[in-house]
C-alpha cells in the first residue's frame, strides 16, 4: 500500500513538474478557424509558435457561419484570433465583434501586398488571397468559357452549379448578373435579378460548401461552376479534366482575414500570432506545402508551386475587388429575392 502511495505521489510530482513551464507562462491562445489542413498547420505554424510564446493553443473549429455565430453569442468573447473569409469578417465588424488593429504591433504588415494590409477599414489584415472564378470540365464544355457572360450560354443548360446566396461567393453572382444585364446590381437589383432568373435553366443545384460542389463534379451532375480557386486542386483530383477559366473581365479577389475579437482574453498574444503568420518564413512554407497562397511579397515560388495559387503582383493587380460594406448591406434583401428565384 505504501508503495502505491509513493508511486502516486511521484507520478503526480512528475506531472506537476512537466506542466510547470506552461503554467509559468499561464497563457492560452484560442484560435477560431476552419480546421482544414490540421497536420500541416501544426508543423508549420503551431509548433514553432508554441515554442516562441511558451503558451498553450486551443481551437474552435467550424465553418464561417457557425463560428461567427458562436463569437456573437458570447459578445465577442472566448476567442483571441479569428480566421474568416472577408465577407464574414465584414459581418463580424458590422456586428461590433472585432477590435481595431494597431498596425504598430504588426511589423510584418510592411512586407505584405497593399490590398492585404488593411482590407476592411482598420480591422484585421488578410493572410491569404484567393480568386472567385469559373471552373469547367473541358471534355463536356467543348467551347472554352472566357467570360462571365458565357454562364448564360445555351450549351450550359442544366449543367451549372452556383454558390448559394449565403456563401462568400453567392452575392457576387448577383453582381455579375447585374454586369451581364449592363447595370450596377446595387443600383438596379430588379435588372440584376432578372438576369439571375435567366440563368436558372442552366443551374442544376446551388452549393453551400466546397465539398458539396466537388461532389457535384465527381458524380457528373454538373460540368461547370462558379468556384474559389482553393477548391480547384480537389476538383481536379476527382475529375482531372476540370480547368480554371481565364476570364476576360478578370476573376474576383477574395481575402481571408485574421481578427482579434473585442472580448479576446490575450490580445497581446493574438498580435504576436498574427505577426508570426505574416512573416516571410511562415508564408513561404504555407505556400510551398499547398496550404495558403502567400500575401507576403518576398515569397518566391517555382511555376509549379505557383500554379495552384493566386500569386504574383501582376495577377493580383488584375483581380476585381468587392465592396463588402455595400454587399453586406444589400445581402439580406438579396437572399429573399434569390430564394424566390431558386426556391419557389
Amino acid at each position, binding site marked *: 500500500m505504501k508503495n502505491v502511495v509513493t508511486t502516486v505521489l511521484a507520478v503526480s510530482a512528475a506531472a506537476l513538474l512537466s506542466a510547470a513551464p506552461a503554467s509559468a507562462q499561464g497563457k492560452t491562445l484560442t484560435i477560431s478557424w476552419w480546421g482544414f489542413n490540421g497536420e500541416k498547420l501544426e508543423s508549420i505554424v503551431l509548433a514553432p509558435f508554441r515554442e516562441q510564446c511558451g503558451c498553450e493553443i486551443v481551437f474552435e473549429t467550424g465553418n464561417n*457561419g457557425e463560428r461567427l455565430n458562436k463569437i456573437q453569442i458570447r459578445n465577442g468573447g472566448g476567442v483571441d484570433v479569428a480566421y474568416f473569409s472577408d465577407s464574414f469578417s465584414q459581418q463580424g465588424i458590422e456586428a461590433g465583434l472585432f477590435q481595431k488593429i494597431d498596425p504598430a504591433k504588426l511589423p510584418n504588415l510592411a512586407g505584405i501586398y497593399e490590398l492585404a494590409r488593411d482590407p476592411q477599414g482598420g480591422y484585421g489584415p488578410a493572410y491569404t488571397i484567393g480568386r472567385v472564378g469559373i471552373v469547367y470540365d473541358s471534355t463536356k464544355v467543348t467551347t472554352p468559357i472566357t467570360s462571365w457572360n458565357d454562364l448564360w450560354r445555351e450549351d450550359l443548360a442544366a449543367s451549372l452549379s452556383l454558390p448559394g446566396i449565403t456563401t462568400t461567393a453567392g452575392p457576387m453572382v448577383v453582381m455579375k448578373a447585374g454586369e451581364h444585364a449592363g447595370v450596377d446590381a446595387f443600383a438596379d437589383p430588379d435588372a440584376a435579378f432578372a438576369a439571375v432568373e435567366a440563368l436558372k435553366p442552366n443551374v442544376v443545384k*446551388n452549393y453551400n460548401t466546397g465539398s458539396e460542389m466537388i461532389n457535384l463534379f465527381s458524380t*457528373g451532375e454538373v460540368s461547370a461552376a462558379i468556384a474559389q480557386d482553393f477548391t480547384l486542386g480537389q476538383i481536379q483530383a476527382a475529375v482531372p479534366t476540370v480547368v480554371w477559366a481565364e476570364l476576360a473581365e478578370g476573376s474576383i479577389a477574395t481575402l481571408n482575414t485574421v481578427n482579434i475579437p473585442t472580448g479576446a482574453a490575450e490580445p497581446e498574444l493574438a498580435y504576436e500570432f498574427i505577426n508570426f503568420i505574416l512573416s516571410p518564413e511562415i508564408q513561404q512554407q504555407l505556400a510551398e506545402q499547398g496550404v495558403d497562397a502567400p500575401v507576403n511579397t518576398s515569397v518566391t515560388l517555382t511555376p509549379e508551386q505557383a500554379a495552384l495559387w493566386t500569386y504574383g503582383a501582376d495577377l493580383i493587380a488584375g483581380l476585381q475587388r468587392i465592396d463588402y460594406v455595400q454587399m453586406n448591406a444589400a445581402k439580406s434583401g438579396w437572399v429573399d429575392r434569390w*430564394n424566390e428565384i431558386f426556391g*419557389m
Partner: protein
Amino acid sequence: MKRFAGWTLASPATLLIVVFLVLPVLATIVTTFTTPGGPFATYAAFFGSGFRRTVLWRTVQVSLATTAVSLVIGFLTAYVVSRSPGWLKSILIIAAVFPLLTGVVVRSFAWLIILGKNGILNSTLLKLGLISEPLTMLYTQGAVVVAMVYLFVPLMILTLVGVLEGIPDDLIQASASLGAKPAATFMQVTLPLAVPGLIVGAVLVFTGSFTSYATPQLLGGEQVMMMGTLMYQQAMVTFDWVAASTIAAVMVVITIAIVLLMTRVARRLNPMAV
C-alpha cells in the same frame, strides 16, 4: 399518498424537461414577440412573404406524403412480420431495422448515388432503352419524399409490429367463425385495433419529416427548401435569429396542431382505441 409518491418520482425527469426543453422553447418564442416592430411583426413578415409561405406549404406537403406512404408500406410490412413464425420474424425485424444502424447523412447520400444523373437508376433505364436522356430526379420534391420514406419506414414497422402482435388470435378466429371473410376481418377487426399504433407511427414520422434538416439539405438544397433548411439559413448564415425563432415557433405550433388533429381523427375512427 400514492399520488405524492408518483410526483416525487417524476420530479427529476420533469425538472430536466422544464429546464432543458420548456424554458428554452419559451425563451425562443418570447424573442419573436419582443421586436421593435410590435408583437406580431415577425409573423406578419413570415406570412407576408410568398417564398416563406411556399416553403411552409412544401414542408407540410412533403411531411404528409412521407407519412402516408410510410403508413401504407409500414403497415403491410408489419402485418407480414407479425404473422411470420418466430425465426423468420427475427430475421425480418433485423432486416427492417438494419438501415437505422447507419446515420441519416449516409442514408440520404445513398439516394444521391441512386437518383443522380449518372446514378444507378438512370443508367439502368438508359441501358434498358426506356429513356434516351437521363431523367432529372435529384433536387426535386419527389427525391426528398423518397429518401424520407426510406428513413422513416423502419420506425413505422417497429411501432406497428408491437401493436399487431398484441392483437389476440382469438379475435381473428372469432371473426372468421362468425362468417367474416379475411378482408372483412382485416378491415373490421385488425385495422381498428391497430389504430393506436398507426397514430403513434404517423405522429413520429410526421414530426420527424416536418423538422428534418439533413435529407432536404442533401437531396433538395435551395431548390427544395423546407422549414428546417430555411431556419438553418436564417440562423447560421444571415444571422437573423429573430426570423429563425419565428420559423421555429411556427413549426412548433403546426406540429402540435397536426398531432392533435391526427389524434382526433383516430378517436373518431375508433373511440375505444385512444
